[in-house]
């Protein structure tokens, strides 16, 4: 891991029992497995706990404003299509404040890989409900006795229906399968979205009495239901009972920077 991680920045800031360290390793292993030239890999994140991920990778890395990691990544990829561009960020960053950029990047089909660490709440600010928090769950801004008034996005369905060419979901305990999907996403010539369902024992776990980090990860293993190839609209997410995991979309579509390259050739009569 020393090849990929800025060891001079360790220990990292995450709480005991948090899944972000696991997800960080998944990305590093995927890069290793693919044998990529690490100088040509760019890692970008937004704001929040998962937003700190980019800072631990020993390559060209950038920490954007809240929600804008994908927009930054698009600029990088279009200006230099030879780079391998990976966004790692959280559910709040990518699906709430950055939701508009997520759906439009899916639609544009730019060859970037988004790893979304979904911990079901805003952890960095102390545990408020977000776009993935289930109905009636407790958080600092959806306190007992009523809990969350709103209903969550299913991120797999959101990415798939917005046009992403590769969509997968795993929990943080399915490290090998998740790493393989991340590697597939990186290799895919198109927009890839990989959701990693993780645990936030400090905020979400405590507020909803879900146990410590170990208990939460054990639970994720129990409720994970692997259904590769299931139509994305059937990829159910019910934290208590069943989280459908697997690869749901892997399709071919013209990729943005490739179309742009063809346009340049045409403009010069080739």
């Amino acid at each position, binding site marked *: 891991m020393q090849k990929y991680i800025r060891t001079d920045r360790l220990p990292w800031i995450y709480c005991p029992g948090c899944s972000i360290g696991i997800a960080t390793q998944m990305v590093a292993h995927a890069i290793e497995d693919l044998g990529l030239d690490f100088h040509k890999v760019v890692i970008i994140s937004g704001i929040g706990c998962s937003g700190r991920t980019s800072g631990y990778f020993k390559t060209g890395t950038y920490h954007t404003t809240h929600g804008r990691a994908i927009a930054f990544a698009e600029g990088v990829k279009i*200006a230099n299509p030879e780079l391998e561009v990976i966004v790692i960020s959280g559910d709040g960053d990518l699906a709430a404040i950055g939701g508009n950029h997520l759906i439009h990047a899916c639609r544009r089909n730019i060859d970037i890989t988004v790893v979304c660490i979904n911990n079901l709440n805003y952890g960095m600010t102390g545990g408020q409900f977000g776009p993935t928090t289930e109905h009636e769950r407790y958080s600092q801004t959806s306190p007992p006795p009523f809990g969350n008034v709103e209903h969550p996005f299913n991120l797999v369905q959101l990415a798939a229906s917005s046009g992403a060419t590769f969509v997968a979901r795993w929990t943080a305990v399915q490290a090998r399968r998740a790493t393989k999907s991340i590697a597939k996403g990186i290799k895919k010539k198109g927009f890839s979205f990989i959701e990693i369902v993780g645990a936030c024992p400090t905020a979400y776990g405590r507020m909803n009495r879900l146990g410590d980090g170990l208990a939460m990860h054990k639970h994720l293993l129990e409720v994970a239901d692997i259904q590769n190839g299931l139509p994305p609209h059937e990829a159910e997410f019910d934290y208590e009972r069943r989280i459908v995991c697997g690869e749901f979309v892997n399709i071919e579509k013209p990729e943005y920077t490739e179309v742009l390259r063809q346009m340049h050739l045409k403009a010069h009569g080739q």
Partner: protein
Amino acid sequence: MPERVMFTMGDIACAEGALSAGCRYFGGYPITPATEIAEWMARRMPEVGGAYVQYEDEIASITSVIGASWTGAKAMTATSGPGVSLMLEAIGLAVMTETPLVIVNIMRGGPSTGQPTRGQQGDVMQAKWGSHGDYQIIALTPASVQEMFDQTVRAFNLAERFRTPVFILADETVGHMRERLVIPDEHDLKIEYRKLPKVPPEEYLPFKADDDLVPPMALLGSEYQFYATGLTHDERGYPSDKENVQIELITRLNNKILHNADKIIELEEFMLDDADIAVVSYGTPSRSAKRAIKDARNEGIKVGMLRLKTVWPFPEKAIADLASRVKHIIVPEQNMGQIYHLVKEHALTTPVHLMAKPAGMPQYPQEIVQKIHEVSS
């Protein structure tokens, strides 16, 4: 490319200036009265091997421009006041991570949706103070179609030299007026590029500045590894909540502009040598002022103009010097008075007279002549 002559509008001159400066990435969102820049870029970028990318909003546009710049591309966006309002947070990010880029604001009537098709100069203070925190910005204020070209080339050069976002602040009248434009032979243009690191990768400190207060910039995809963040960071680029790190960074970011103000600021003196009264102006009102000054001179009134081609950093010394030479200063602005307050601050005891007009047409020459009569009597 050899010299070309066009009869065209300010917005298109601006786009051509960007292309001549080497801009190969445009991220934007259509907005009146800056749309013609996007339209021209959409046609021209494929010809020069660049990218025109239309985003879902102005936030994505500017953020993608920051991303493109970090790969080494010269990159820009163009918008109007409402778009700049959306971009402000990212402009702060560009300042904090020292990202060279150009933002064009073709100013229209505001606040809010205002008068999209009418010009105004209401965004001068927004350009300086819009994003949160203490920072400096560079803003150039062209007043003709030719200057839209020239200043855009200069904006890219300043952005690269000082690793900072640079504004073109043009009002709608300048953006939409049509005049003769001479695009010089490409060999006659001075084009600058950012400093790249010269030390070996293991010795590189991404935010350690040279004597000019500007750090060399490594690019994404290069052999240099680095972390750039909007968080307060030390010379290694690592986040820090230490007081001295915050003070050192913010002081340097401000000083790299302020200490180089003399190199950044450009001014035009018009009939000022023997003047008793000076008009201080920028953009479209300066064109009315020129005519008014000629008319008043015909009546024997000694009046001239200091035209600001740069409003940020503000030319404090030039205003103080002017105030020591004249008896009155008149400031016509297409707003309720923005630059006026700075002129007043630096003019010390010399009376400064505001001609405020928060509307689409600039002050008419005869209105400025009338004001000259008032203050001279």
